[in-house]
């Protein structure tokens, strides 16, 4: 085989099979060219392009977030006239003062924390035992029940029949509408089942049974302690889902005392309702308020996103693990 300097091009035609199917690569064609120096012009160009691309991606994601932070405690007039770019100017905490005076935000916070923690707990209580059962091969009804569950991933009754059902069950305007209807997410259930299946060998269960272990004890004493990684990933998914949920409240909740934080945020961020109710701005609301409208919005964005940002570094290491768990088999 003639070896050319332009290995870059010729390899296109001579080695079409590379990677076509992963394992067959062992039988790849023989080397076309000898060893080449590692850092040639092409490699360098590649590195520079990569560096630039990464810098671009980094800035485009980080700058908007950074800007919101500095805008939330800069003088609102300077922000509005485009004078604030890289550093906060004329630091003022007026926005935050207004936010801390606004009771609606704290009610929303309280409700959301409750729905999130209680909801996630219920999610786990329903999902994990069910996933364990579906992972047991000796459970006869396994396939039938699995099918019953999977169908719901592709087909559902739609918004209106679901809404009317909630009304008939008198769940609207109660806290239960946040907890009960969504306590099993089939997708997470499948992830959990797959994990139990692949991490708990049949032999382990048989050995436990020899020692007189029932399914209950095996589940609590063996299966759960061995599945901490999966449990934290699924818990995290449920947690974030509850925290960000506003659709449930939008449709089923009319009572102001039950509104979660996200609905309050919608009022403030999108409907400009900070000032409709006065929210502590006093007598000359109008122009005075308008000047600070955006600063309050920037502050609200920070205050409402802070919990996620605080726990984010702690939970991040689980992300990839979680997806890996989910992608084994199916």
């Amino acid at each position, binding site marked *: 085989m003639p070896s050319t300097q332009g290995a870059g091009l010729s390899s296109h035609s001579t080695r079409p099979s590379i990677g076509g199917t992963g394992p067959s690569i062992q039988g790849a064609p023989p*080397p076309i060219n000898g060893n080449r120096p590692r850092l040639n012009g092409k490699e360098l160009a590649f590195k520079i392009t990569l560096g630039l691309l990464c810098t671009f991606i980094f800035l485009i994601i980080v700058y908007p977030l950074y*800007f919101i932070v500095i805008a939330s405690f800069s003088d609102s007039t300077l922000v509005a006239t485009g004078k604030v770019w890289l550093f906060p100017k004329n630091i003022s905490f007026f926005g935050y003062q207004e936010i801390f005076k606004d009771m609606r935000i704290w009610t929303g916070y309280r409700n959301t924390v409750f729905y999130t923690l209680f909801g996630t707990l219920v999610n786990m209580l329903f999902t994990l035992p069910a996933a364990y059962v579906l992972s047991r091969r000796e459970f006869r009804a396994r396939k039938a029940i699995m099918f019953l*569950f999977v169908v719901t991933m592709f087909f559902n009754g739609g918004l*209106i029949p679901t809404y009317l059902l909630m009304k008939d069950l008198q769940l609207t305007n109660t806290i239960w509408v946040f907890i009960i209807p969504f306590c099993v997410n089939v997708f997470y259930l499948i992830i959990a089942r797959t994990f139990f299946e692949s991490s708990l060998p049949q032999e382990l269960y048989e050995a436990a049974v020899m020692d007189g272990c029932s399914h209950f004890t095996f589940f609590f004493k063996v299966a759960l302690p061995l599945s901490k990684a999966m449990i934290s990933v699924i818990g995290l998914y449920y947690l974030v889902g509850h925290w960000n949920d506003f*659709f449930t409240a939008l449709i089923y909740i009319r009572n102001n005392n039950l509104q979660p934080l996200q609905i309050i945020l919608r009022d403030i961020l*999108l409907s400009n309702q900070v000032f409709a109710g006065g929210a502590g701005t006093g007598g000359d609301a109008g122009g005075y308020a308008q000047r600070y409208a955006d600063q309050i*919005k920037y502050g609200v*964005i920070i205050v*409402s996103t802070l919990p*996620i940002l605080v726990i984010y570094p702690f939970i991040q290491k689980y992300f990839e693990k979680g997806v890996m768990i989910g992608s084994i088999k199916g």
Partner: protein
Amino acid sequence: MRTRKGLVQAVTRDYQLWIMILPAIIVILIFNYIPMYGIQLAFRDYDFSKGLTGGEWRGLAYFRQFIDSYLFTDLMRNTFLISLASIVLGFPAPIILALILNQIRRKKMKQLMQTTVYLPHFISVIVLVGMLNVLLSAETGVVGHLMKSIGLGHINLLASTGTFIPVYVLSDIWQHCGWNSIIYLAALSTVDPQLYDAARIDGASRWQTIRFIDIPALVPTIIILFILSMGNILSTGFEKIFLMQNSLNLPVSEVIATYVYKIGIVSSQFSLASAIGLFNTVINFIFLFAMNTISKRVSETSLF
């Protein structure tokens, strides 16, 4: 060894298992299957006193009413355009990002990049739209000032019919591209490192290893995710579209899902809204099946 330990023991065993799975079954039956049964509302008049399935049978009348309505073409066009733009731009983005991240050799750098790109996923959709509102405002937003300073003038990106789709799609990529790249990164991490060594000895450039090792390794994952996204072509991002809507961009932002909400929940025309919702589901299904069949023929990868 799978042993049969006698009927008594089998029953004892199964009884515990049934107790553990029963709550989940009950919840799924009530909250997923009863609404499916309630789909017949699309073919009936809704009768407050008789519940979901008690009204008079109307056949396809509500479907006809929807198809004949003057909004039908607009709704279909908007829904398709937004979905199409999301798929054409939004689908390849995480793949490309995963390929880029996978090329970073320095561990610290890679960690930093990954932490950064996942972050926006955790911002709630309301906060995201709130951010768009303050950042893109033509008068006071940072993007508005930027556009003015480079001579693009005074465009209200959020309230113009021409910019709704780009803003929607690009902000979606900003928010979810990193997160969606995780699954591709996971797929890339299963590639045998010897493959890269072999390729390097063969004189392959970095670009060639991407082209001939990384991309082929991603193909099965890409196909599965693509089929799944086709099944959602008509139900894209109700929440975000709904929040981004205003009276000025409504001609391009009203989609089937938001219309169902308005007709059903806001104006209580339950039967008509159910019919529109069902129409939506059926078209989704047709897309899902079509893509699945095509994929089965072409690549032997399929969902079912």
